[in-house]
């Protein structure tokens, strides 16, 4: 058995946006993708962690704040890409489920491997759909969507509840055509509880400078929040969900 140890870049004890209710969100280090708009470049390398935690530590941390989380909250594994540390996430999720704690996985699904056992212990998958078209997917994150598609298929086989997300970037996917094709794509996915469009922002630029990594969207403006909200509304209308 692998060592019960997770590498973490940050911990949000009052997570209000990554899953239902108020949650403990663990940002795990390591990500195989290099998305153009990534706002957490400091989490790319597995070795970029600031802290290590055991599953017991995670449970203790949750317990410290469970009075705030109430019945609607839980724990979300985010990143980086949490599937990079799938063994740790599995150990953790098992322990959390033994304690009746809601678990969510915030992922791109774009990692190779068999995650069906892990998904048995995950209540909600928050899945990032980088792009619908293969070439666009690759353009955005540098990888083909093969693993993503496999992961989605397993989620569907296991009837996992899904929240679907997409980052909207000006001049890349902020037009009606994209929204329509995204809607058509999502229509074929079942168990979708929520769809969210996240407006791209350039706040991470300084992080790139610090890390000496070239920033690729220098000439792209921030996504207008209102316009993004309109697109989200449109998407929801097309999908007939609220």
């Amino acid at each position, binding site marked *: 058995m692998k060592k019960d140890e997770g590498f973490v870049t*940050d*911990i*949000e*004890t*009052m997570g*209000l*946006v990554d899953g239902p*209710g*108020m949650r403990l969100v663990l940002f795990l280090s390591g990500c195989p993708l290099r998305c153009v708009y990534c706002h957490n470049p400091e989490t790319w390398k597995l070795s970029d962690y600031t802290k290590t935690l055991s599953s017991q530590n995670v449970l203790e941390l949750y317990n*410290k*704040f469970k*009075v*705030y*989380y*109430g019945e*609607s*909250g839980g724990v979300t594994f985010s990143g980086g890409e949490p599937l990079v540390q799938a063994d740790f996430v599995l150990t953790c999720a098992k322990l959390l489920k033994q304690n009746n704690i809601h678990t969510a996985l915030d992922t791109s699904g774009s990692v190779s491997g068999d995650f069906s056992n892990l998904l048995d212990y995950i209540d909600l998958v928050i899945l990032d759909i980088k792009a619908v078209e293969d070439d666009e997917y690759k353009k955005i994150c540098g990888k083909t969507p093969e693993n993503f598609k496999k992961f989605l298929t397993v989620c569907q086989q296991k009837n996992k509840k899904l929240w679907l997300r997409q980052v909207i970037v000006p001049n890349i996917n902020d037009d009606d055509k994209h929204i329509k094709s995204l809607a058509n794509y999502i229509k074929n996915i079942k168990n979708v509880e929520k769809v969210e469009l996240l407006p791209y922002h350039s706040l991470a630029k300084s992080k790139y400078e610090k890390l000496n990594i070239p920033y690729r969207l220098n000439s792209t403006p921030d996504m207008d929040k209102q316009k993004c909200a309109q697109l989200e509304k449109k998407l929801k209308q097309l999908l007939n969900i609220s």
Partner: protein
Amino acid sequence: MEKNQNEWNGFVGEDWKNSIDVSGFIDQNYTEYTGDEGFLAPKSQKTTAVWDKCKKLLEKENKKGGCLNVETNILSGITAFKPGYIDKKNEVIVGLQTDAPLKRIVNMYGGTKIALKALEAHGYKLNPEVQKHFIAYRKTHNDGVFDAYTPIIRRARKNGLLTGLPDGYGRGRIIGDYRRIALYGIDRLIEEKQKDQQQNFLDEDNLEENIRLREEVSEQIRALNQIKEMAKSYGYDISRPAKNAQEAIQWSYFGYLAGAKENNGAATSMGRDATFFDIYIERDLKNGTLTEIEAQELVDQFVIKLRLIRHLRTPEYDELFAGDPTWVTESLAGMFDDKHSFVTKSSFRFLHTLENLDPSAEPNLTVLWSKNLPMAFKKYASKISIRTDSIQYEGDDTMRPLYGHDYAISCCVSSMKEGKQMQFFGARCNLAKSLLYAINGGYDEISGMKVIDGVEKIDDEVLDYQKVRKNYSKILKTIAKIYVDANNIIHYMHDKYAYEASQMALHDTHVERLMAFGVAGFSCAADSLSAIKYAKVTPIRNKDNIATDFKIEGEFPKFGNDDSRVDDIAVELIQEFYDCLKQHKLYRNAKATLSLLTITSNVMYGLKTGSTPDGRKAGQAFAPGANPMHGRDCSGALCSLNSVAKIPFANCCQDGVSNTFSIVPSALGHDEKEQISNLVNIIDGYFIQGAQHINVNVLNRELLIDAMNNPYKYPNLTIRVSGYAVNFNKLDRAHQEEVIARTFHEKR
């Protein structure tokens, strides 16, 4: 025919008729409301007319530098002033402190010097005849106190070890049970007080107390008669009980008003009235004699009156308690027992005044929160908090086991059983400066004066935790004694020279007394100890060998991060100080209580304190109340709350633990619906851990900076500071900057 049959028609229960027992009356007659805010009515035309006039007056007051007018020919007193009105034909609740709105009273009984200084500061002069005679013939509280103060109290005061002591003006913090007037009428209250005076022979074992109390009860009876007379000048006969909702509110308000005419205490709180009033409102609604819009009109207009309460203050006072606060605290909700709450439709109506009449700092609306309050009410309160930043929350499940279910909050966080307990307000002592005294052998780091004897100076190059901590314990013991002595003297003299007869008349004759001590610089002291323990702290000493700065090498845990290494130090410190205080005998057998509440005096205390071992530089502000030092609670909002929640309330900080919590709206959720439900969860979680108080601000720092630079854009911007709310524009620059420097919990 049964007495008061008309007034009490429809009310159930007998016990409360036989003795003065408002609480018993409420228990048997109130109707809990578990629904939502859908029933609420907008403000009436009359209210609109009255409020519009007030808004103009308030604007005028602001333009004049904060004081619109002062009555300079007459001194304070229950019946001293002619009736005054804002807009007589539209006022459904009447009564002003003087004969005109926002015209302030000169109260000389607390101290002549301060009263005259306040007059001068605002450009007024007291009628010279009045002044001459008062000074010639009347000794004041302030005179008495300084006749008795010991040399060491004077030194402690002068050096800012003790600050804000109520030794030159009214002590405040006393809440009369004003509801008694409405339920029983003044005559019955006088009758009961007369019964208490029937004793024929004095108790020689308690001679002084016995004589004092007899004199006081006679003064109380005189005050009750004066309240009746004052009400009569407004055309109301309050000798009998109130017979409808308008009268219930009006009668109670006359009681409060008498206290605000007679006294000028820093905090003069209202009590816990909404659910009491609701019984009368419900009865009238049922009888068809009142509509919802009229019920809201009564509450709105009562609240308008409370918003106009003013006292004449000096600039020094304003520095300590910024923004002209009066702490007309009104406590709402709370639980009757584990299952049933005191939430009524009127609890909603009171919160709704913040929508009908714009956000406001006063009255200081305080929700007594319990995990078992009806969800609809929790959500409504959270919504109003998010929209107005004007509500504070206090843990009912924390306080109710100690104070029963009919307590009210005085000032910011002080709980007292209504009509059964009174409080001797004791200001606060500077814990961070005390620590410097422990290092500097009792010498003050700023004046260089030796304030406390018997503690050796620490000469080590690097501070040793055990050694400093041992000295600190010695210092705390001595300071507790000085502090107790000061308060014993203050309250002895206050009772003698500035007795609050009208407020005490609305208490039981035999009351329980609490002496409310307080501390400032709590988190600064805890962090300083943590720095000495976990980092390397080297004092930098001046030529007199007094440490005036510190070099800090290495990391140390800071209070506010849910880190037990420092949180335990903090808890141990405050428990130790309380234990030192409670060793002493207190005036009139009062019980010692302690608060972590600075109001805005954290700025002034910081100004008077040299650099501390935690890295805070000389003159920099402390954090308010029990808050972590600004910007040091960096592990997230909940960690910060968890640290504060560890501070024990029962048998330690039983006078309150104030926490001011600021969060930016986007960190609280995407939309208002989400923000409301998340705020409910946060408040629930905080209080479930036994916490006592939280101020909630949901706003952006950028907004405050803009408001500081462009005040005209935000005439009604109200924020919670420490135990109370203020209009942001009424704060001076130093206080505004301090508020902006505080930790705003953001999305990370």
